[in-house]
């Protein structure tokens, strides 16, 4: 019995210690301790700034850096949050929920026998206590939990309804989802597919719509935002976009009335050679990125409600 208890207890030690022990840092301990203290202070400062950001958030012009995902221990690479700019309710709710999941006491969020499989468990809330905590966060930021989500079925019809049927011509009529797509009650969705330009060039493309009224767990994307060329672009229909052209990824972000829409293209300015790239795609320049932006009906996507 004692062995089992010890075994279970060791299984419950903090992930941060397990992760820390994954690789040994050379015994330059003074520097190491200073660095950890610095990280701890940085995390506190980040938390404080994040809290201030929420109180100051109003829709306006932001840049890609405002979507950067912070992590106290650092990931070693750059990532952006596709759910919105820092300070927006959904961004803040996701930050708070992620911190809870990371630091909640061991056992507090374990699945319970007979527990329901619903949107809460889909967001990582397995216990009653965690569900209550998530409800508190949603209430704090004025968000609702979608009642359900589903994988896209009848893909082509839906793409057409979303005004993006032209970009995804290979969508099957029904059933088989070529890559991945989820649609949430309330109008949020995530769609990963292969997009095609009118001239036949194709590339991987991810489109996210986060409804302002609903909570959906964000997806972060690895992007070297600091090497991106970014500018604002106004579509023919008047939609204002933040556009970023990187080496092998490009983005479009629209902070709209009802939603935040984020598009990530798996291609960029030096992704490949002029004729044919390593992924079989061609490079993008600013004009082509703006041309692609015109193919997406952001106003239609924003108008989705259910």
């Amino acid at each position, binding site marked *: 019995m004692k*062995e*089992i208890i010890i075994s279970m207890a060791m299984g419950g030690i903090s992930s941060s210690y*397990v992760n820390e022990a994954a690789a040994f840092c050379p015994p330059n*301990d003074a520097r190491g301790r200073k660095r950890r203290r610095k990280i701890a202070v940085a995390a506190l400062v980040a938390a404080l700034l994040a809290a201030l950001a929420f109180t100051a958030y109003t829709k306006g012009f932001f840049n890609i850096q405002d979507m950067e995902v912070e992590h106290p221990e650092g990931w070693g690479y750059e990532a952006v949050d596709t759910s919105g700019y820092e300070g927006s309710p959904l961004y803040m709710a996701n930050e708070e929920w992620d911190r809870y999941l990371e630091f909640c006491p061991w056992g507090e969020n374990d699945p319970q026998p007979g527990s329901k499989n619903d949107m809460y468990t889909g967001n990582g809330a397995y216990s009653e206590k965690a569900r209550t905590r998530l409800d508190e966060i949603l209430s704090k930021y004025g968000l609702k939990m979608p009642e359900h989500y589903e994988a896209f079925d009848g893909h082509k019809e839906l793409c057409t309804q979303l005004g993006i049927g032209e970009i995804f011509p290979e969508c099957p009529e029904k059933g088989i989802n070529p890559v991945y797509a989820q649609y949430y009650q309330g109008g949020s969705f995530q769609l990963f597919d292969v997009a095609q330009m009118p001239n036949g060039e194709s590339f991987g493309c991810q489109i996210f719509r986060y409804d302002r009224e609903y909570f959906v767990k964000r997806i972060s994307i690895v992007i070297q935002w600091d090497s991106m060329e970014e500018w604002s672009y106004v579509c023919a229909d008047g939609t204002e976009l933040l556009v970023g052209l990187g080496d092998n990824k490009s983005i479009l972000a629209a902070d709209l009335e009802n939603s935040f829409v984020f598009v990530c293209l798996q291609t960029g300015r030096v992704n490949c050679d002029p004729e044919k790239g390593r992924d079989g795609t061609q490079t993008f320049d600013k004009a082509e990125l703006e041309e692609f932006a015109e193919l997406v009906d952001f106003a239609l996507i924003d108008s989705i409600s259910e």
Partner: protein
Amino acid sequence: MNDREIIELLFSRSEEAVSALAERHGKAVGRVAVNILGSLHDAEECVNDTWLGVWNSIPPQRPEHLGSYVCRVARNLALKRYHSGKALKRNSQYDIALEELGECVAARDDVEAEYAAHLLSESINIFLGTLSYEDRFVFVRRYWYSDSLMDIAKMTGMSYNSLSQRLHRLRARLKKHLDEEV
């Protein structure tokens, strides 16, 4: 490929994720499995189960630290296999590490195992927070990853004897810490 990109592949249900996982974390996962199970054959099956477990749990989960997450999945699967009697017992690093820690922990028949483990876990986390980085590293490598003393000595550059003494002192400190907490 980095962890974030692997998670993206898992979310996009790309089977490439499994080979990327194996390439990036296969060595660590294999080590955890073989340390606990003491058999290469069992460990190999456990590693394959681990990739399946990770594939089935991401999504919906999105771990912050993929490395420790997959090692945790591997550890849980290896322990399940170990306790089910399939593994070669009394011969693995896990058994030896468990015996060492057993000296520090008093028998608790008065509470249920799960609750006792929970309390003990919390105490160990507090204890770990009081340790220096090197002490914590050797403790976690020995008692979570179940690495052999020889392997930890190689990782840290310590001699076998000094590592052994350091772990002995750490266990004594843990015992004192746990006694004070009771």
